[in-house]
């Protein structure tokens, strides 16, 4: 068992009345123990769907195929009861919106207690108070606030409470779905700091879902770039930042604003995400890709292994060393 998490050819489809939406399309990745993976992409690229499928809490109209191995056990085939006993205890999740993620009419205390009781039904209340207070303290919240209701906290504090709730039972894997998106910049950094501490001190593996490449660069080990349900590039964070292979990754990196540059014009990727109901033929990125070739219009590229990374792009067909260089400067 070398990996805590391994997804193999994961597909998630949402069945709706007017057509099926393929939110995740043949995604494979792996995450080692104590590693942190950043899943990066635009809104609607399927990254949150992957997050939800790691805990199997997708909406009922979602159809999942493929495998997700958690500690070598396939979660896709696991019975509901077994999955439930993993949630919160082995795998936890924190969500984008801390304002709505806590039950508004339940004291924080009771939300902790019910989480603990779901896995340890016989635990004494005094023991639960101790555990909850410790985890709150470790995350920078006064334990006396256990008595409070969610509305008595600010946004950043609530996200801290959410994190505390997620890690109260010391899970091995934490899935964070855009944990800082709805917070202001100062609080964003504080929360990232909390996550970083968790990673370093508790040896937790993490999946960090975000659209902000810059924010996660410091704390992730591996990065997966998502586009329209596909994982287009997957590899070590440093090599991806230094030498992006997929044209989409290159464009994403170019579009990070840099205030130091004199040319203050914001760069962005032209066009929009394609409709997931009727995606374009061939490579889904070809309508926005500056390097689109004939083959890109006809066939969906397979994933090529280049420089120890995985890239889903025809540019790297038959190239083991990735010697082919695309000129990043010309595409901004």
């Amino acid at each position: 068992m070398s990996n805590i998490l391994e997804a193999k050819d994961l597909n998630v489809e949402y069945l709706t009345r007017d057509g099926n939406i393929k939110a995740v399309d043949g995604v494979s990745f792996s995450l080692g123990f104590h590693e942190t993976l950043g899943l990066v992409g635009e809104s609607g690229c399927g990254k949150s769907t992957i997050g939800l499928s790691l805990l199997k809490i997708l909406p009922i109209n979602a159809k999942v195929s493929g495998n997700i191995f958690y500690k070598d056990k396939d979660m896709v085939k696991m019975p509901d009861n077994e999955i439930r006993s993993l949630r919160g205890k082995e795998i936890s999740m924190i969500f984008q919106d801390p304002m709505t993620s806590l039950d508004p009419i339940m004291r924080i205390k009771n939300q902790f207690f019910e989480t603990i009781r779901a896995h340890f039904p016989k635990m004494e209340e005094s023991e639960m108070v101790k555990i909850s207070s410790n985890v709150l303290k470790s995350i920078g919240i006064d334990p006396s606030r256990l008595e409070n209701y969610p509305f008595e906290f600010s946004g950043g504090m609530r996200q801290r409470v959410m994190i505390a709730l997620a890690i109260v039972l010391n899970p091995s894997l934490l899935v964070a779905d855009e944990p800082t998106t709805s917070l202001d910049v100062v609080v964003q950094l504080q929360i990232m700091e909390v996550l970083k501490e968790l990673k370093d001190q508790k040896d937790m593996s993490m999946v960090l879902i975000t659209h902000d490449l810059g924010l996660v660069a410091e704390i992730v080990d591996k990065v997966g770039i998502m586009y329209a349900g596909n994982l287009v590039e997957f590899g070590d964070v440093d090599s991806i930042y230094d030498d992006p292979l997929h044209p989409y990754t290159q464009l994403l990196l170019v579009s990070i604003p840099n205030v130091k540059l004199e040319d203050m014009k914001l760069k962005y990727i032209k066009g929009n995400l394609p409709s997931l109901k009727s995606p374009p033929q061939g490579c889904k990125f070809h309508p926005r890709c500056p390097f689109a070739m004939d083959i890109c219009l006809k066939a969906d590229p397979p994933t090529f292994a280049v420089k120890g990374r995985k890239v889903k792009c025809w540019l790297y067909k038959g190239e083991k060393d990735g010697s082919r260089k695309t000129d990043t400067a010309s595409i901004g």
Partner: protein
Amino acid sequence: MKTYILTRVILSIPMIFILLTIVFVVLRILPGNPVTAMLGPKAPPEVVKSMEAQLGLDKPIIIQFGDYIANILRGNFGDSTVTTLPVIQELEERFPATLELTIFAMIIAVTIGIFFGSTAAYRYGRPVDAIARIYSIFVYSMPVFWLGIMLQLIFGVWLKALPVSGRASPFMTPDNMYTGLYTIDAILNGQWNVLYDSLLHLVLPSVTLGVVISSVFVRMVRSNVLLSLSSQYVISARSRGIKESKVLYAHALKNAMIPILTIMGLQFALLLGGAVLTETTFSWPGIGSYLVERIRYRDFPAIQGAVVFFALFVVVVSILIDIINAWMDPRVRY
């Protein structure tokens, strides 16, 4: 909280005054008065005159209004023109019947509403959900008296299993009255056969009324639970391994109940004013059938008294709802 309740009570005073005025005026605009209603159109004029004088109906209307308001302020609702008994005493006799029927009907309606509604929401789009939707439309469009008559026919006439009218069989009333609710008084007296008899009498009217009201409750609970089931705190509770039954009842339903509670409470208050059709169908001696009976006789004091009584209950119940609301939802502070 105290100031809030006090404000509510003070604000309800003008409301009740306006209501009193409207009832007074409407009753006197309507054709017919107690005298003609009782003596018939062919009564000799001198008899009519003396009776009008006796009831105070010969005075100018503004004086009548003044007397009426002054009496009510003293807690005097006047005497019935039909029975000459004090209206307040008659209401006291009739009200427990209505209260008992209302309580049982509400228990039935709330139970059906919560369980059926939340199950339908949880199984959205499945057969249970379809049945719940058909049930609520079907029951909602069903006249209450029709349902009552059908149940009387089936369980009373054909199966001869349940009594079809009244609150109790002859000689089956509790010996000592404490609350006026037969079931409670029977328990307090330890008269178990009386309790059984009164429960039997309650079955058909309370099921009829309860089922009809439940249709709205089922729909309301269903749509509100559906809404809260899709909310983020439900997903996040699931992500922490909380059991599905707890997710549904402790999180989704509890949050959904906050707005529903207000409507349930108002429905309760509305029923306390007498479920006219149900009470009439089952000859239930409550406020509803009292009102219908007395309107026929143009019994002004009785009608006015019943309406004021009703208004007071709506005020009290709606304040109670607000208190319960504040207790359930910590965000509400008055």
